[in-house]
């Protein structure tokens, strides 16, 4: 390690000076922390205090800084030293604000502060300022997969921003679903009448754009590499494959209408006069090409009555069909009903729905349809019975509570069947059971990743993302999904989504070149380093990485693709031989803190509890508990961690061996509704820790000595309560037998 100079600064402001013996803290930093320079300051975060630190960096050659003041979440502008390794000992939110200001509490409070100073010094010494990722790529070309409205929009917007685009479309024409439409819902006021889909315009923009390289009748045969340096093989109809260097990828593979043949009870597949929404668009286009009269497929007679059946095979709680609502179909049926009414008001058009869903200005569109005489009936369609050239639609009229309601002699029935995402292979799907025939969907990206060929999916085949706050963050860095493959959506949203995805892709390739991490640790220059000599090829890191960043080289050793890495540290937590580390976060930076704590002997009646707290939720919750002066035990020592997934069991065993009486782990909610910003981190951490009991047995320790807790950022009351309760329980269990060894 290059020669480092560590300086510790203890702040006396915000009551620290009054509540703590800061002179002792300075001595502790020197004596136990072994820092070369230790100072205290009345008001460290003000201009003068910061100037002092800057001066020490400039003139004293200080490289490592330990700040004993407020939480690492506070005063970030003041204590901003990007060139240096910095650790913060949280003496304010973490000590004086959570302890009573009483004589009897004074000693334990001081103990706490002293330990945090020791820990801070130990941590910073184990850190180095990140040097940056050496294996960056510099390709500035985007790959867009899918030539529908979403894909074309992404391509056009990226080009407008000044980037090269490779656009791959599996069919012979651009346009996708939208290309098959007669008209679309209006996008500007007035929201009254269907308008031209505007696809032709998009197509000509793509065609005329020199930045966009178009492959038709082509698919992605292989995707290799990482953001900034993807190598993509594109297979074309002719059999020839082309190789492209790609910086980032937008997957806009769109959707397929749910197959109406799965709905025989609604007449699906039983009669040519029962069509899905695509079928109706085709009839409308055909009519537009002739006399404008939409005709009955079976015998070409003009349609005089049409019924639209909403939620056909959707919103189905039984699990037989789609569980979700596709969102766009109500407006689509309204639009299609207008095809008839605008052409000939005397055509009877009825929409049968359970909940009509026309958000935003769609409400105007709904009103307009009513004005045009489209009849809306709240009902559940039980059966569509085709006979001869017409059909009978049997339904339960929910308003008139008529279970035997029926529409007779209906010329045409349109089933609104909804969207099924084309998201490729579900790489984490359970293998087909015995006898069950497995129809594997075709891969979209053919990723040459250790973890599989496509972007992981969440529920119902839609690609996984941190659904609410960070919708674009898939589990494959530099690959962004957009359009109905991400969630059901209409054209307006798809275009918006495509534009956003284009930005994320551009951002990814720009940052990949600079070696900067992508969301959520955006800009982090650290990256995992591995001591291959120590590696046992157990493959846990390659299996567990939530982002599929790690492959295996030909010698079966883990092969890190740094620019795929999101810096969560899950690999580090998974590694049984502890050969993986980050410059600013490692088994050592945490381990050193654990060891730095001064463990009183068993007679002192001062138990010690180690808390490993997720820095995204648990740690802020503890901070805010402090801001609210919600007190908790002085026996805890808290270490923020990047993610529960990064917790290496060695920390726990080391702590217990060192005589800690208990360990609490605080991570985010896992499972389908996960709240972990690294998607699977907390889940993987939990799985790992569920096995800790065996370790405890070998040490013959009670299983109560380790506790795994789900903590949310709002638990500012609950967490202190849990801590205090646990502290009491440990007293009952008695001190750890390992004390004083």
């Amino acid at each position, binding site marked *: 390690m290059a020669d480092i100079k560590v300086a510790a600064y203890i702040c006396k402001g915000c009551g620290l000076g009054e509540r703590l013996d800061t002179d002792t803290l300075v001595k502790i930093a020197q004596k136990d922390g072994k820092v070369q320079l230790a100072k205290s300051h009345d008001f460290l975060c003000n201009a003068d205090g910061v100037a002092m630190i800057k001066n020490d960096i400039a003139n004293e050659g200080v490289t490592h800084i330990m700040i004993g003041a407020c939480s690492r979440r506070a005063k970030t502008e003041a204590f901003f030293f990007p060139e240096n390794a910095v650790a913060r000992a949280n003496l304010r939110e973490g000590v004086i604000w959570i302890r009573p200001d009483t004589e009897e509490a004074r000693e334990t409070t001081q103990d706490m502060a002293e330990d945090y100073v020791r820990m801070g010094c130990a941590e910073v010494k184990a850190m180095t300022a990140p040097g940056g990722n050496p294996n960056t790529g510099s390709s500035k070309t985007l790959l867009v997969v899918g030539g529908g409205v979403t894909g074309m929009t992404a391509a056009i917007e990226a080009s407008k921003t000044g980037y090269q685009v490779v656009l791959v479309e599996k069919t012979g024409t651009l346009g996708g679903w939208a290309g098959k439409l007669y008209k679309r819902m209006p996008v500007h006021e007035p929201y009254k009448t269907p308008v031209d889909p505007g696809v032709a315009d998009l197509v000509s923009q793509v065609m005329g754009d020199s930045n966009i390289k178009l492959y038709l009748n082509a698919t992605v045969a292989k995707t290799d590499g990482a953001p900034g340096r993807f190598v993509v093989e594109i297979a074309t109809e002719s059999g020839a494959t082309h190789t492209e260097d790609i910086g980032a990828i937008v997957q806009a593979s769109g959707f397929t209408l749910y197959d109406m043949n799965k709905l025989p009870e609604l007449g699906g597949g039983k009669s040519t006069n029962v069509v899905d929404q695509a079928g109706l668009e085709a009839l409308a286009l055909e009519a537009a090409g002739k006399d404008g009269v939409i005709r009955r497929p079976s015998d070409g007679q003009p349609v005089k009555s049409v019924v639209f059946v909403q939620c056909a095979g959707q919103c189905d709680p039984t699990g037989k069909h789609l569980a979700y609502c596709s969102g766009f179909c109500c407006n689509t049926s309204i639009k299609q009903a207008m095809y008839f009414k605008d052409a000939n008001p005397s055509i009877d058009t009825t929409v049968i729905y359970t909940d009509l869903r026309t958000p935003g200005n769609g409400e105007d569109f*709904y009103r307009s349809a009513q004005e045009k005489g489209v009849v809306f009936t709240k009902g559940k369609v039980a059966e569509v019975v085709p006979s001869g050239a017409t059909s009978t639609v049997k339904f339960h009229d929910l308003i*008139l509570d*008529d279970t035997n309601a029926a529409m007779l002699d209906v010329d045409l029935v349109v089933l609104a069947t909804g969207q099924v995402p084309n998201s490729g292979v579900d790489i984490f799907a359970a293998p087909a059971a015995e006898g069950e025939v497995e129809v594997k969907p075709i891969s979209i990206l053919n990723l040459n990743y250790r973890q599989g060929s496509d972007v992981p999916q969440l529920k119902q085949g839609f690609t996984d993302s941190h659904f609410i706050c960070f919708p674009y963050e898939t589990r494959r860095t530099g690959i962004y999904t957009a359009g109905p493959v991400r969630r059901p959506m209409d054209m307006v949203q798809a275009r918006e989504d495509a534009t956003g995805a284009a930005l994320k892709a551009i951002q990814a390739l720009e940052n990949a070149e600079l070696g900067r991490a992508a969301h959520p640790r955006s800009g982090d220059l650290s990256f995992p380093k591995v001591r291959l000599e120590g590696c046992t090829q157990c493959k846990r890191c390659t299996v567990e990485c939530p982002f599929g960043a790690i492959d295996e080289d030909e010698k079966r050793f883990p092969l890190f693709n740094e620019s795929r890495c999101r810096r969560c540290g899950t690999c580090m937590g998974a590694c049984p031989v502890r050969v993986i580390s980050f410059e600013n976060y490692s088994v050592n930076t945490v381990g050193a803190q654990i060891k730095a704590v001064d463990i009183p002997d068993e007679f002192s009646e001062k138990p010690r509890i180690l808390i490993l707290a997720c820095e995204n939720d648990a740690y802020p919750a503890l901070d805010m508990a402090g801001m609210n002066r919600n007190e908790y035990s002085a026996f805890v020592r808290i270490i923020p961690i990047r993610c529960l997934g990064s917790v290496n069991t060695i920390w726990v065993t080391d702590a217990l061996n060192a005589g800690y009486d208990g360990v609490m782990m605080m991570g985010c909610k896992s499972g389908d509704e996960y709240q972990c910003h690294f998607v699977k981190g907390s889940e993987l951490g939990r799985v790992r820790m569920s096995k800790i009991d065996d370790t405890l047995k070998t040490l013959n320790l009670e299983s109560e000595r380790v506790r795994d807790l789900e903590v949310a950022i709002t638990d500012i009351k609950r967490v202190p309560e849990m801590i205090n309760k646990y502290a009491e329980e440990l007293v009952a269990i008695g001190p750890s037998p390992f004390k004083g060894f």
Partner: protein
Amino acid sequence: MSANTAMADKYRNNFLKEIEEQVEMGDWVKMCMQCGVCSGSCPTNFQSAWEHPPQELFMMIRAGKREEVLTTTSMWNCTSCYNCIVRCPRKLPITHIMHGIAEYAHRLGVAPKMQPTRFFSGLFWKNATKTGRVNELKLSMGLYFKDGLVQGIKNGMAMQAVALGLVKAKRLNVMELFGGHKCKDQKGIQSMLKKAYEIERSRKAARMAG
């Protein structure tokens, strides 16, 4: 063939169209989104339920339930309080539609025969237009005696206290039975109204033809 069957025949199975063309404000019926705020706002619906509240009538019209709609007593319970109108999120003039459907049912002669409000409504109009001004006494008497002499006397007795109070307070004048208030130009009023009916009839016929 009765006016009713003529119309039913004319509009075959499109009752909604019939209502739109033949009923005052009928073309608003299609705009209802079945929120039910009208039904919930109606005082008489809450005192003693309507057979079919407004929003349900609108749905029945769309469902082509002609017979049930035209023969129900429901619309006749309207007190013209206008609560439904001011609360309707689609701004349907519900009060007027109710009156309109009632008037249409009455015109076709299918409205419930002895529905008291139907009777009173007609009575009121005749009373008012006969002389140009309402004669409250004749109006009340007319109403009491609608079910014949005996019932009329009963009704009269029942209302005696009320009537007496009004007489004492000089707010009911027995002399009204003989003559009473009236407009000078009654002839003008009569022919004016006659003309109005002609025009309205021809308009509705035209709509049906067109």
